[in-house]
């Protein structure tokens, strides 16, 4: 079966790859582009570990075909920090110890970034609903939510 050539942008950089028509964007990111920050939990759209943005829209990369990336702007966890400088959200996750094993963390941070872009001042309830598609087996969510609300406040202060 002929591979399809795809030209796209990942975290602002032009990227090209070859893929099979049925391959997911998650698999291409991890296996071909070596961007392994995006995680696979369920592979079926339930856990949010694979969260990325496509043209600024938060999606599960396990439910996107790699060919659909043609001409789009993809955002992954690798694009969140400014080189060695952690983003505020990442910093707040560390300060609040909002992670244990860490497998949910990249997906959560990408989702939180999307949340705060849409709604810079979320209530706790709004934050919990928005992030309901990001499952965490370790933390019990409380520290995550505290980190999110603190990050939101810090970002508002800086703006």
């Amino acid at each position, binding site marked *: 079966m002929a591979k399809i050539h795809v030209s796209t942008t990942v975290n602002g950089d032009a990227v090209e790859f070859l893929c099979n028509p049925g391959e997911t964007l998650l698999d291409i990111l991890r296996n071909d582009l070596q961007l392994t920050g995006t995680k696979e939990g369920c592979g079926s*759209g339930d856990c949010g570990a694979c969260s990325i943005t*496509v043209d600024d*829209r938060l999606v599960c990369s396990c*439910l996107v*075909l790699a060919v659909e990336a043609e001409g789009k702007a993809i955002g992954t966890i690798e694009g969140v920090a400014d080189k060695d400088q952690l983003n505020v959200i990442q910093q707040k996750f560390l300060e609040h110890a909002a992670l244990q094993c860490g497998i949910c963390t990249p997906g959560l941070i990408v989702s939180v970034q999307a949340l705060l872009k849409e709604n810079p001042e979320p209530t706790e309830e709004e934050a919990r609903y928005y*992030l309901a598609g*990001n499952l965490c087996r370790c933390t019990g969510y409380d520290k995550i939510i505290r980190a999110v609300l603190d990050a939101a406040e810090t970002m508002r202060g800086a703006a």
Partner: protein
Amino acid sequence: MPIVDYKVPVSVDEAVIMLKGCNTAVKILAGGTDLIIQSKPAGSDPLTVVDIKSIDSMMTASIDDEGLTLGPAMSCAELTARDDIKSVYPGLIEAAYLIGSTQVQGRASIGGNLSNASPAADTIPALIAIGARCIIAGPDGERVVAVEDFVVGVGKNCMAQGELLKSIQVPPPEAKTSDAYLRFIPRTEMDIAVAGAGVSITMDSEGVCTAARIAIGAVAVTALLVPAAAAALVGSKLEESALQAAAAAASAASKPISDRRGTADYRRHVVGVLVKRAVSIAAQRAQEQ
């Protein structure tokens, strides 16, 4: 079915030709939140997918004097952000907002929710309630099917191979008309309806209900339009007795199954309660106009 070919038509006509000309099984790709999962198990027949998201009319929605025209592949996230649509059809937006997580809503579409034809799909009762129609394009031209007739079984819609859901249209509502959608799930997010109710209610200036459409979901093989429930409301001021009669009619029309989400008896009862509550919400909205 493994996906072996991917096509990107830029017009409805081109899509119809591609759907017809395929020598493998073919499926239409919109948001992919059902299709990509369904295509993952290995084995059996190879599948061609036709991605309709490069067709402009599939991705846009308009609302004006002619009514509402919905591009079937537009994502729920984009739809629920449309205040112009929400102000006229708050119930439809409520239903779209209940589909999956934020991430899933970023891709999932109304056309996909409808075509995938789950008995528990949230947008189907909401669309039936507002009298939505499906415009279907095919090799022999177009046809129009009411949403209540579009879904014909569990996971089955009325489209033949080679046909395509081109748009969803809703005629403009009468004055003082509004809608509401409620579903019951055991938690508050990320679950599938145990029962659902979509209603549209028209009131007059005296507070009398002059027209109603009541649809119920997740309590039969397909979502059902329940004319008997509407009949119980029309001509009344929506007093408790009328609401009770509508609830009883909805429960009587339901044919639920028992599964791990709830027993048949429970669903039959809950769907009546949801109808009652949704009618009150829609009537209040209609009266505020």
